[in-house]
C-alpha cells in the first residue's frame, strides 16, 4: 500500500537525517503542511492523499479502520470533483482532548482520541466558500504530516 511504502521511504530518510544531524525532533504541523494537503485535495490527488493518511482515520463521526474505506473516501472526493473553494486557514493550534466534541464526542470518538491520535497533533480550521472544514494533522519530522482526521463541512 502506498501509505506503507511512503512510511518505509520516510523511515529511511529519517534514519539518514538522524545520522547526519545527530538529532531530530517532531514538530507540530504548520501552515505549509495544511496548504500542501489542500493542494492535494484540490488537484484530486487521491493517491498521495491516501499515502498521507493515517492507517486509522477519523471522518466526521466515523472511524475508518479499513484502509479500503480511507482509499475509497479520497477516490470518491476526486471522482466527484470536490474542491476546497477559496480556502482560508481560520486557525490552527495543538489539538486538545476536548476537541473530540467536534467529531460527535461519543464513546468511540473518545477512544479514538485516546488511542490513535499522536501527540503534538494539530487542529486546523479551514474556511471555504462551502463551509468550514476541520483537519487533524500529526506532527512531522521530515516535512510530511499525516492526516488523521477530516471533519465537515460545518
Amino acid at each position, binding site marked *: *500500500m502506498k501509505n506503507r511504502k511512503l512510511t518505509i521511504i520516510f523511515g529511511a530518510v529519517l534514519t539518514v537525517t538522524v545520522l547526519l544531524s545527530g538529532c531530530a525532533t517532531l514538530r507540530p504541523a504548520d501552515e505549509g503542511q495544511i496548504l500542501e494537503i489542500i493542494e492535494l485535495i484540490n488537484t484530486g490527488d487521491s493517491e498521495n492523499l491516501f499515502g498521507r493518511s493515517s492507517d486509522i482515520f477519523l471522518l466526521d463521526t466515523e472511524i475508518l479502520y479499513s484502509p*479500503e474505506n480511507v482509499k475509497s473516501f479520497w477516490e470518491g472526493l476526486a471522482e*466527484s470533483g470536490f474542491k476546497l473553494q477559496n480556502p482560508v486557514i481560520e486557525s490552527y493550534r495543538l489539538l486538545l482532548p476536548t476537541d473530540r466534541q467536534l467529531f460527535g464526542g461519543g464513546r468511540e470518538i473518545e477512544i479514538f482520541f485516546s488511542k490513535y491520535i499522536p501527540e503534538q497533533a494539530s487542529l486546523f480550521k479551514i474556511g471555504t466558500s462551502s463551509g468550514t472544514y476541520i483537519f487533524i494533522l500529526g506532527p512531522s519530522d521530515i516535512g510530511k504530516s499525516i492526516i488523521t482526521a477530516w471533519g465537515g463541512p460545518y
Partner: protein
Amino acid sequence: MKKALLAALLIAAVCLPAISQESDVIYIEGWVDLKDSSGEIYELFIGDRVLQGDSVITGDDGVAELEPENGSRIIVKPGTVFSIREQSVNGKKYPVASTTLGQVAFKFNRMTQEPLISTPATVMGVRGTEFTVYAGADGSSMIVVDSGAVEVTSAGESVLLEPQQGVEVSPGKAPGEIFPVMGKAVDFSDWNNGKIDSMMDNPADALSKLAARLDEMILDAEKWGDLHQQSIAELEAFRETRSALFEEEKDEEARALHTDIIRPLEITSLRYVMNYRYYALSALSMRQHILSGFYVRMKSAYITDRENPVYSAFLENYQIILADFEQRLAPYLVEADY
C-alpha cells in the same frame, strides 16, 4: 435463534476441529494488519500466530494465508476483514471464523469430524471441502464450493452446494438459487462493485436493510446478556443457599449443590457471556466496516450536493442508527474492542 440469523452481513464459519483457535501465518503479501483482542494494531508477518479474538485486515494488495493446527488453510484475500471469535453452540464452545467484508477461501483437510459452518446469516454443514466465502459491502454473501459439499441454511431454509456450485444469500433472506460456477473463478471485485452500485442507487433501502440486520445482532447480544444477568442472579441465590447449608453443617448437601447446580450454572453463565460478546463484536465489526464504508461512499458522492434530499435523509437515519447502536451495545463492549 434462526429467525435472528442475519443474511450475510457477516459470514462466520464455526468449525469443530477444522479451525482451531490459533493459526500460524504461513504467507503474507502486501499490506496485512492484525488487530489483537487488546485493540492493538500490528503489521502481520510470516511466523506470527492469529489467536482467538484477533482480526486480520488486508489492504487492496494484501493476502494472508493462515494454517490452523490441523493443516487446513484459510486464505484471506485483499480488502478483507476476517476475525476469529468464540461462540457457544448447543452448550459447546467453538472457534468462529468470521468474514465481515471481503473474500476468504477455506480449505479443510484431515478432518476428524465434519465441521459445522455457521454464520449469523447462515448455517453451513461442511463435508471435506474447499470453498470460498464472499462478504459484500451491502451485507450480502456468496458461497462457492470447489470440492466437497456445503449445506447453506438461512432464514430457516437450506440448500446443498456441491462442487462448482454457488449460492448468494441476500440479507435476511433464504438462500437464492444455486448457480453453476464453471471454469473461471468468481471475481469478488466485480460482484462487490455491483452490490455497491445497488446501494448507491437506493441508499435509503440499503441503509434500512443494514439497520435491520444490525438491530437483529444487537437483539441477539441483548438476549444473551439478559440470560447472563438472570444466571448471575440465580448463582447469587444458590451461593447463599450453599453458605447457609455449610452454616447448618449440612456439608454434603452444600457440596452436592455446588457440584450439581452451581458449577454447571457457572459454566452456562460463562457461555452466555461468550455469546453476547460474540454478537456484540459481530455488530461492532459490521458498524465499523460495513456501515462506515457506506457512510464514506455517501459522503464523497454527495459532498458537492449536500442539500440533496437523498443525502439529507441518509444522514438523518444514519445518526439515529448510530445513537441506537451506541446506547444499546455499549454494555457489551469494552475499550479494547474499538
